């Protein structure tokens, strides 16, 4: 589903230097507001077309109001307001990061190429110039050790953010993440807290090959003592980043390689997203579709088709992968009685598998049909584009699944 944003006077994409100065930018948008007509910025994120500012097409589409992503939990609703500023998801992450680094001098970043290079996805661009090489630390390629270093720093009073250049690299840090990050608070009898944030891009990209297309949320989910969240829009990316940094618990923030160029208007005022809550993307009546990260966009695209076919899906972006927000999910199930889970994890042992179990355990009586879980195939992600497309869930499959579920 294409996320449609109202962009007023936002013809030029935000360059990194602009986005630091959001107030300044806001002023300029206000000035330009008066003389401009609103136009639609369509960002397609179905994995087959270029994302973001490169491909801005002005299409006046039939606006199906319900099919659009609305932020149910934000104070400023973007569709109508002229406040806020527009930016790309990676800029939103950077903004959140910068605000927290300004707010608390104990917040620091460490990872490969986060400093001078600005981050492989530009999330930390410019920060090293502003905060210095020690606060935005370029580490050698030693994931296990620098993650452990982050944990030691967290134990002794700092609030580090460890960036995995690709989430898959954090497999090398599994020892530290599992044993120390997750368990140390417990084994020390509560004496040491580990307010660390581990973040990085994961998920299936565009023909990145098997090892760069991993979904580590399924491997990490059993580790006791950590929280996992996945961001999917610039709004919740910034909100979750800030919440994760402020949290006293170790949080793993999963970003997605293909979502970094999503553009959205976010509020100027400071806000945080709750780490444990799910996000209602589209209220509906017929079926509950639970999803997260990139699959949210596949689901929304399928939702458009479904709406045209007369279905009314309720789409929830679960956001919190561990723990699950069973309240939001439960309320939805109690309303619709049918559940479809759409995820990018592997079939075996993925987030969907856990979610299926949790729902069955808690809401079995409310279900009119078995839970359907659409996940990626248990296949190492192939390089060939055609094969890669068939390993992840596509909107057409989602439509078919809903139709079958709602029979």
């Amino acid at each position, binding site marked *: 589903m294409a996320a449609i944003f109202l962009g007023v006077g936002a013809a030029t994409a935000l360059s990194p230097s602009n986005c630091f100065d959001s107030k300044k930018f806001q002023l300029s948008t206000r000035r330009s507001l008066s003389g401009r007509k609103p136009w639609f910025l369509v960002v397609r994120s179905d994995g087959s077309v270029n994302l973001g500012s490169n491909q801005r097409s002005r299409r006046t589409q039939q606006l199906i109001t319900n099919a659009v992503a609305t932020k149910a939990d934000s104070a400023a609703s973007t569709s109508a307001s002229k406040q806020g500023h527009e930016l790309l998801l990676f800029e939103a992450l950077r903004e959140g990061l910068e605000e927290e680094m300004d707010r608390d*001098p*104990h917040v*620091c970043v460490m990872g490969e190429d986060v400093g001078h290079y600005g981050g492989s996805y530009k999330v930390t661009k410019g920060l090293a110039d502003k905060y*210095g090489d*020690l*606060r935005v630390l370029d*580490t*050698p390629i*030693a994931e*296990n*050790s*620098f*993650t*452990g*270093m*982050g*944990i*030691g*720093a*967290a*134990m*002794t*009073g*700092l609030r580090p953010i460890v960036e995995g250049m690709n989430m898959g690299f954090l497999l090398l840090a599994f*020892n*530290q993440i599992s*044993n*120390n990050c997750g368990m*140390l*608070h*417990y*084994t*020390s*009898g*509560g*004496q*040491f*807290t*580990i*307010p660390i944030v581990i973040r990085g891009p994961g998920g299936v990209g565009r023909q990145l090959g098997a090892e760069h297309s991993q979904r580590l949320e399924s491997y990490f989910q059993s580790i*006791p*003592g950590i*929280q996992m969240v996945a961001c999917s829009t610039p709004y919740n990316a910034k909100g979750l980043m800030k919440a994760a940094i402020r*949290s*006293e*618990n170790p949080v793993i923030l999963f970003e997605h390689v293909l979502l970094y160029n999503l553009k959205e208007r976010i509020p100027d005022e400071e806000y945080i997203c709750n*780490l*444990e*809550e799910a996000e209602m993307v589209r209220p509906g009546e017929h079926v509950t579709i639970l999803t997260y990260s990139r699959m949210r966009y596949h689901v929304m695209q399928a939702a458009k088709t479904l709406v045209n076919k007369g279905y009314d899906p309720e789409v929830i972006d679960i956001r*919190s992968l*561990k*723990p*699950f*927000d*069973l*309240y*939001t999910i*439960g309320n939805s199930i109690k309303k619709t009685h049918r559940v479809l889970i759409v995820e990018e994890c592997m079939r075996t042992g993925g987030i969907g598998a856990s979610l299926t179990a949790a729902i069955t355990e*808690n*809401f079995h009586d409310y279900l009119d049909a078995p839970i359907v879980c659409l996940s990626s195939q248990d296949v190492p992600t192939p390089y060939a584009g055609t094969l890669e497309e068939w390993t992840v869930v596509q909107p057409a499959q989602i439509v078919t699944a809903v139709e079958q579920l709602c029979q």
Partner: protein
Amino acid sequence: MATAYSSAKFVQPLSLNSTINGRSRDNSLFDPLKTGTSFLGSTRKLRVNSVHSNQGNVRRRLPVVAVSEVVKEKKLITKQEGLELYEDMILGRSFEDMCAQMYYRGKMFGFVHLYNGQEAVSTGFIKLLKKEDSVVSTYRDHVHALSKGVPARAVMSELFGKATGCCRGQGGSMHMFSKEHNLLGGFAFIGEGIPVATGAAFTSKYRREVLKEADCDHVTLAFFGDGTCNNGQFFECLNMAALWKLPIVFVVENNLWAIGMSHLRATSDPQIYKKGPAFGMPGFHVDGMDVLKVREVAKEAIERARRGEGPTLVECETYRFRGHSLADPDELRDPAEKARYAARDPITALKKYLIESSLASEAELKAIEKKIDEVVEDAVEFADESAPPPRSQLLENVFADPKGFGIGPDGRYRCEDPKFTEGTAHV
């Protein structure tokens, strides 16, 4: 300070190889040339061809001095320091012996790794630290905890699994932590603690340079064994510590055996101290059975770190008198080797030194031993009488912020559920 121990020469790693090799020969009280090959292991001869061939050319002619001669010139320790060191080592030894007793009586379970024989390293290093300095250890951490100042009662209770233990009974023998005394653990996997120590050192540097706390000169000590020195985390952290000049000292307790694996059988180049210069830090080798020597080297290494000159690698040649753990039958090690090292018992050596240099009398030392006996007995009593953790403790420390357990089906946070605080909630 005798020139033989001066650290000023060690700043440039390139010349270190020779000087260290030169010094190590002359360091120990017991002539290593006699026990030359056997100091690195009991079952194999050390092949040191390549090392020796380079020696002649680059070795500096340092005055060769044995410790005893240095001592005659200048006192290494005062009486008070001497008694403090003795008391700490006796505490370590008695405590560990009591642990063994209690284990066989069924008061503690699981894996218990005792430190008998290695007390000189712990005492030699940790007694030089301030309270704010951090120590990171391995599973053989009881004595590190005691030396750092964690009360014997708290450690014994932890071993018994009682709620009054230093980690509320949740850590156990291998996970001793104390925030008050800056003991950052207690790690079961080898090598796991070294990055944590590097992080603590990083915080110290960060405080000084970013937070502008100019007087922050906290040093971190990382203790680990010979087996760990073949592990990736060791090398990765040596690199990072040297790269950023972190205030850390890497202390290798080379007791020649990793459970049943002889250091020589596992390591291509068994001389661990040489790995320091490869990363740009000085590498020391010291006789770990002699607390005074360890202390001298430790002083330099710690001062170096405090001055901001970066990390040091110190290899302490030591030995554990007991098996790897209380479950280890210890059949593989040569009894002759054990006997040889038993003759170098650090406690006996210090006692001899204190008496011979008239720093303390036999009676004073006996009094210390008696006092420690009482401390250890008291610790056992305390642990015995303490209550085990109640069920309500089960879920308490999983998260620092218990909201991390999430929102339950009823809309409330799970941690607000009364069953949660009772420990019976299913999360």
